[in-house]
């Protein structure tokens, strides 16, 4: 095949609008964001000085920001563990073939189609913190089926409150993780299971040595996707509690800083969020690109 510009000129030309647009709106704006984060633009007035990493130091020595990171960590742990457990369990139960599988699958997955704002409306009600006679939502259910001791203040709890906020997130995304695991299960060739059974492997050994290793790429994908969504969590918190200190995460703190026109602060929080996500995503992208190259 002929090489040269006649060959690769047209495709490059066709894709160049996208390269330019994303160059500006992704990479350019990230650069602009970092530059604002290193300025002293704490109000509507234009920036006057370059302050280096001063904003970062201030943020990391601020109790409020550390509290938002703590909240994010609690939320992320519960969100990831919850979606992985339910997602795996559902996929595992459905994989072996059940009647009306499609119905279960569709129902488990449907919350994915709904916005966090809409589900926030109902979850705000379900997670109502009133207890006893005034209890509604989940606390009322616990009360009426004799599990009153399970009643709790949900997101109003200062230590574990964010675990309650993770519940609607788990509700919305477990179905997605289920779909990922289900595709993983169904990608395992039947011959592999048969061969292991022929060799007299017990059911546990079959899972331990055949199924789990085959599922690990899928589990990694699920972990990365759910993890990076978790770091970005914003809509759900705004819908359930609004931007308040109790449930503050970096993304909602950023919103407060930006609406107060503290551009330097919001940009600093944004850079930290970006770094958190990049730590997760960049190795994953490289890994996927390599795996794909190896397959070709």
């Amino acid at each position, binding site marked *: 095949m002929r090489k040269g510009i006649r060959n690769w000129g047209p495709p490059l030309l066709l894709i160049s609008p996208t390269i330019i647009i994303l160059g500006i709106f992704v990479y350019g704006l990230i650069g602009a964001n970092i530059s604002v984060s290193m300025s002293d633009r704490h109000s509507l007035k234009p920036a006057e000085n370059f302050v280096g990493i001063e904003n970062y130091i201030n943020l990391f020595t601020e109790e409020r920001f550390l509290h938002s990171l703590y909240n994010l960590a609690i939320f992320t742990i519960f969100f990831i563990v919850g979606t992985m457990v339910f997602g795996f369990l559902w996929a595992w139960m459905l994989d072996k073939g059940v009647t009306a599988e499609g119905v279960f699958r569709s129902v488990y997955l449907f919350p994915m189609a709904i916005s966090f704002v809409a589900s926030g409306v109902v979850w705000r009600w379900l997670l109502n913190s009133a207890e006893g006679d005034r209890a509604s939502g989940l606390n009322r259910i616990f009360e009426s089926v004799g599990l009153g001791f399970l009643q709790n203040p949900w997101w109003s709890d200062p230590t574990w409150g964010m675990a309650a906020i993770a519940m609607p997130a788990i509700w919305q995304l477990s179905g997605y993780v289920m779909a990922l695991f289900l595709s993983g299960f169904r990608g395992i060739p039947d011959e592999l299971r048969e061969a292991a059974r022929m060799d007299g492997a017990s059911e546990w050994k079959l899972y331990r040595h055949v199924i789990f290793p085959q599922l690990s790429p899928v589990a990694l994908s699920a972990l990365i996707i759910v993890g990076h969504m978790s770091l970005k969590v914003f809509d759900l918190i705004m819908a359930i509690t609004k931007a308040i200190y109790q449930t503050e995460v970096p993304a909602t703190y950023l*919103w407060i800083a930006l609406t107060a026109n503290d551009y330097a602060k919001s940009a600093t929080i944004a850079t930290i969020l970006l770094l958190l996500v990049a730590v997760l995503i960049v190795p994953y992208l490289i890994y996927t690109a390599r795996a794909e190259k190896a397959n070709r």
Partner: protein
Amino acid sequence: MTITTGIEKKTAVAAPPAGARARFRLGRTSKYVLLVLFLVMVLMPVYVLIVTSLKPPQDVNPATSWGLPVRWPWESVAPGGPTGFDNWTIAWDALGPAIMRTFALAIPAALISSFLGAMNGFVLSRWRFPRADWVFTFILFGMFIPYQAIMTPLVQMKTSLGLPSDISTLLLVHVIYGLPICTLIFRNYYVGIPMELMEASRVDGAGMLRTFRSVVLPLSLPGFVVTIIWQFTSAWNDFLFALFLSNQRQGPVALALNNLAQGAQLSNYGAAMAGALLASLPTLIVYIVLGKYFIGGLMSGSVKS
């Protein structure tokens, strides 16, 4: 239709080994019990949304909050008082215009970024150029960034360019940030379908654009369905860009719903829940009618084809 989600059941299901029948039946029963239990758990919020939206405000109280409505939705507690249906009227009055605006936002956003994504996916998979993989990764990164990372300068840019706080700005933003996922979906889609015709057309000396238009595009319908659904759903459900770049009066339905739920009628849970149902209806219908393609889009989100 060549979209495969990878989660459909394989045709042959191995028969259970004989002898383990009784144990098998017990395990089977408990599995169905569990499956149904989870089904009920997942649907519980929907039940709450529906029953609460049909109760007049006086009937929404903690003691009966899980119960079915005690009267028909067209009946009121006191003569002339509000009925269950009034919740829906309030919700529609609050959300109706915003719902129309959101259609005007989500449909063009879906069409434009899908078309651009198809062209990108085509040159990244079938009409390649040197370093195409690098370009692909360059584009893909945009899909994973937290949009907060660009929000501060984006808001400043919007202000300095004097862009309006309405649907048109959001349309631009959704097209731009939808490019990576649409490119990804189309690239994976084109890699997966055989295109002898395309090769033939190329050998015949047809140019890139002609090949794309007359050979590739006619084969692209399933890919378009997936990206359009994906983009429509994310533009419809978006709250982040809407909050930072538009306002309550001119913004999309997510903002209007949030305002209805947290605004003046804070005590009126029924109207808020009716609103949540109204605002979710379009994406739910898409999910029910085109579920397979919806899942196809979800699976593409995990990068691997």
